[in-house]
């Protein structure tokens, strides 16, 4: 990562940026890690209710969203290669695809949550309090908090990628100053990584 193309006035240290990003990613992993532990403990204590509640979730939508995130992870990873190869157009194109896929993911999530809301499943709903057991309420509480926090990360990731797009367009991010794009990529992969665990834990394990 040693680059000597220092700008006249701005400091640039790709390696330090990378370390900083990884430290931040570490805190994010532990944040979601803590939530996963909460989930596992409650699942252990309410196995039957979690089993029942999990069947409410639509595996197809979950699977589509998984595929979307995996593909978008590939496109942003590829964009780091195209940037190194000085293919600006291809880089911007791949990032545009990444952003579009991220938006489609959010739209899916909107409809998925919307269906739950229509069925009276949302935190604090009368329907849940009257009809659901304690364990099922816990399951949906965790479902909304964890997928919601994940969706928030998607939104942040999209904004970061958008910054990278603008800077690449302006030419201030290029093959010798790629840290912003590299770090945007790392963040997007983190979001993907979290979903890799959310999907089986909520949708698949019955």
């Amino acid at each position, binding site marked *: 990562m040693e680059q000597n193309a220092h700008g006249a006035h701005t400091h640039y240290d790709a390696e330090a940026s990378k*370390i900083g990003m990884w430290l931040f990613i570490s805190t994010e992993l532990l944040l979601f890690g803590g939530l996963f532990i909460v989930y596992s403990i409650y699942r252990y204590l309410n196995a039957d209710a979690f089993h029942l509640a999990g069947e409410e979730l639509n595996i197809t939508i979950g*699977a589509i969203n998984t595929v979307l995130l995996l593909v978008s*992870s*590939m496109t942003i990873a*590829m964009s780091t290669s195209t940037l190194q190869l000085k293919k600006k157009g291809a880089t911007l194109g791949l990032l545009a695809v990444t952003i579009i896929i991220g938006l489609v993911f959010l739209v899916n999530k909107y409809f998925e949550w919307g269906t739950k809301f229509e069925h009276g499943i949302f935190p604090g709903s009368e329907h849940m309090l009257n009809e659901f057991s304690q364990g099922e309420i816990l399951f949906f509480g965790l479902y909304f908090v964890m997928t919601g926090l994940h969706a928030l990360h998607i939104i942040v990731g999209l904004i970061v990628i958008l910054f990278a797009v603008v800077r690449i367009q302006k030419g201030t991010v290029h093959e010798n100053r790629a840290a912003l794009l590299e770090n945007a990529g790392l963040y997007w*992969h983190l979001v993907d990584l979290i979903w*890799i665990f959310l999907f*089986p834990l909520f949708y*698949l*394990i019955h």
Partner: protein
Amino acid sequence: MSEEKHHIVPYRVYVFVLLALLALTFASIGITSIELGEFTVAAALIFACVKTFLVLTYFMHLKYDKKYIVAMVIFVFAIFFAVIVITFLDYLYR
């Protein structure tokens, strides 16, 4: 592999990794649809861990990074694992 400057990962590596990730996703959907009882959770988590390894190694470039960054990541996962073990020891033996 190539010059010290910056490793440019060939596109095909990313395509292969994506195909592997998609295959693992569908495999995990398949295996959890079978009634395996207690093993369903284990199977789903094993698939997720393999996918995580692929994403960290290739998409997040750990394979091409300096070793101390890999050590940092392993350290975080080790802490996380330790917390899981301690928490479950508490719940299982209280």
